[in-house]
């Protein structure tokens, strides 16, 4: 069965202050339906650039992407906007990801309205159901997004992302800005949603421990290149590339015993 997402040989360069910077150099990866691929790397490894190219927020210089059986990069205009319902994103900063003037209700109403997921009179019910699915209550719908805590906002972001019933969810450092005690609950929510709805996930982070918790497979990036891919357990137990070894070594461990 062909994979849900297939990224092939994506390259992207920037010119800055007269120099050419290579952000991505022939990067390829695949994601099967219903699986979670963790994408790890340090700052400057190119993982965020890759996610922005994937979400069609910036263009790439070369390469192709096949998503859901179609040539993703060739889509434009209204056809692209329609197809976007199949691929959604959760951003890192839960404060900056929302219009400062928005309420939870309008945030969730937008994707439902744009893609006609349900009829207009059924939308409030759908919003209530989405809120409950992510662990919030229906009465949150009238509150301004800015009044919620970081963890609650990220739940709203996840609710917005699953509102269009996507087949792929891209999470770019989605828990990095959250408190440690809140992080675990959001990760559990993601795993739960995947089990229930079979959504595939691309989970991007610089923290291998977080990626390990939720990913089936892991891909390691360094300096704009894909340096290692494999099952999560294998990468963690026996990292082959220097970048992967550095990431494994850098994960802080709780040192509890006196030795």
């Amino acid at each position, binding site marked *: 069965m062909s994979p849900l997402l297939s990224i092939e040989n994506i390259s992207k360069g920037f010119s800055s202050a007269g120099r050419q910077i290579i952000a991505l150099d022939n990067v390829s990866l695949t994601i099967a339906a219903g699986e979670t691929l963790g994408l790890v790397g340090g700052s400057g490894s190119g993982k965020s650039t890759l996610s922005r190219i994937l*979400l*069609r*927020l910036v263009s790439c210089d070369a390469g192709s992407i096949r998503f859901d059986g179609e040539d993703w990069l060739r889509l434009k205009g209204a056809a692209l*906007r*329609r197809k*976007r*319902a199949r691929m*959604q*994103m959760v*951003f*890192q*900063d839960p*404060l*900056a*990801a*929302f*219009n*400062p*003037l928005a309420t939870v209700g309008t945030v969730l109403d*937008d*994707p439902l309205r*744009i*893609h006609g997921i349900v009829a207009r009179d059924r939308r409030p019910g759908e919003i209530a159901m989405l809120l409950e699915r992510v662990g919030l209550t229906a009465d949150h719908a009238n509150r301004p997004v*800015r*009044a*919620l*805590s*970081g963890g609650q*906002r990220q739940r709203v972001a996840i609710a*917005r992302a699953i509102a*269009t019933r996507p087949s792929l969810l891209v999470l770019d450092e989605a828990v990095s800005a959250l408190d440690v005690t809140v992080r675990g609950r959001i990760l559990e929510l993601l795993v739960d949603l995947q089990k229930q709805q079979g959504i595939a996930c691309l989970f991007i982070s610089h923290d291998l421990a977080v990626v390990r918790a939720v990913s089936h497979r892991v891909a390691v990036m360094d300096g704009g290149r894909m340096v290692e891919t494999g099952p999560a357990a294998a990468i963690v137990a026996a990292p082959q590339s220097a970048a992967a070894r550095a990431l494994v070594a850098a994960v802080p461990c709780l040192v509890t015993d006196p030795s």
Partner: protein
Amino acid sequence: MSRFRRLLSTPEGVAGLAILAVLLLAALSAPIVSPGDPLRIAGRALLPPFADPAFPLGTDRLGRDVLAGLIYGARTSLAVGLAAAFSAMILGVCVGMAAGFAGRIVDEALMRVVDAFQIVPGFLLALAFVSTIGVSTPVVVLAIALGAWADPARLTRAQVLAIREQDYVASARVIGMHPVEIAFREILPNALPPVLALSATIVAGAILTEAALSFLGLGNPNIATWGSMIAEGRSVLRSAAYLSVIPGAALAVTVLGVHLFSEGLVNALGDDGGRTA
């Protein structure tokens, strides 16, 4: 509205609002307090203020009532000031948004036009325009607006460029929102507050420019304006200084009131939006 209360909590906001309220009241009540044409000859010429109860602020060289001129002049100043500022803002915001969204060639071209209008001093531009076209009130409003629209255009463009990079605009694109809807629902409402704060300054400038134009004889000669009253009083400045000083003081207080109101507005709007949870 909490913003209104915040406006009232600063001394500048209160003072500004008070002055503008008095002005508005004067302008609206003009036909009641001084019925009839303010430019008609009402009594003896050059009556000093407080001499005759019928003319509390005296009369000018031709015997026209100064108080009538003052409150009808308030109407002109407010009407022209607000209309000119409004036109300048609309034009500036539209051009700024077009430049901010279109980018590249269109942005460059529009900004060179903005540069051209910013280089010419606003007053000289208005002067040239009115002397060429004519002295009716709509022409005066247009002339002032042409000199004032460049600043809001620049500010709007800067705001649009900054907001376009924000994650919430990227979010809107990702969920498939149409670009026009993104422009009007996500970007514009967040771009406007600093531009609106600028509008009060534009009103003050417009009021002064209108007064200056009518001082030079380039305003509408058929209506009472503070500028023309100041001009009329020049020839008798030594003997009847009140003829120029009274409208001059009214002008100064009005502009001060607008500036104070604008300060209060900036404080009230500025505290908002910077708060994080």
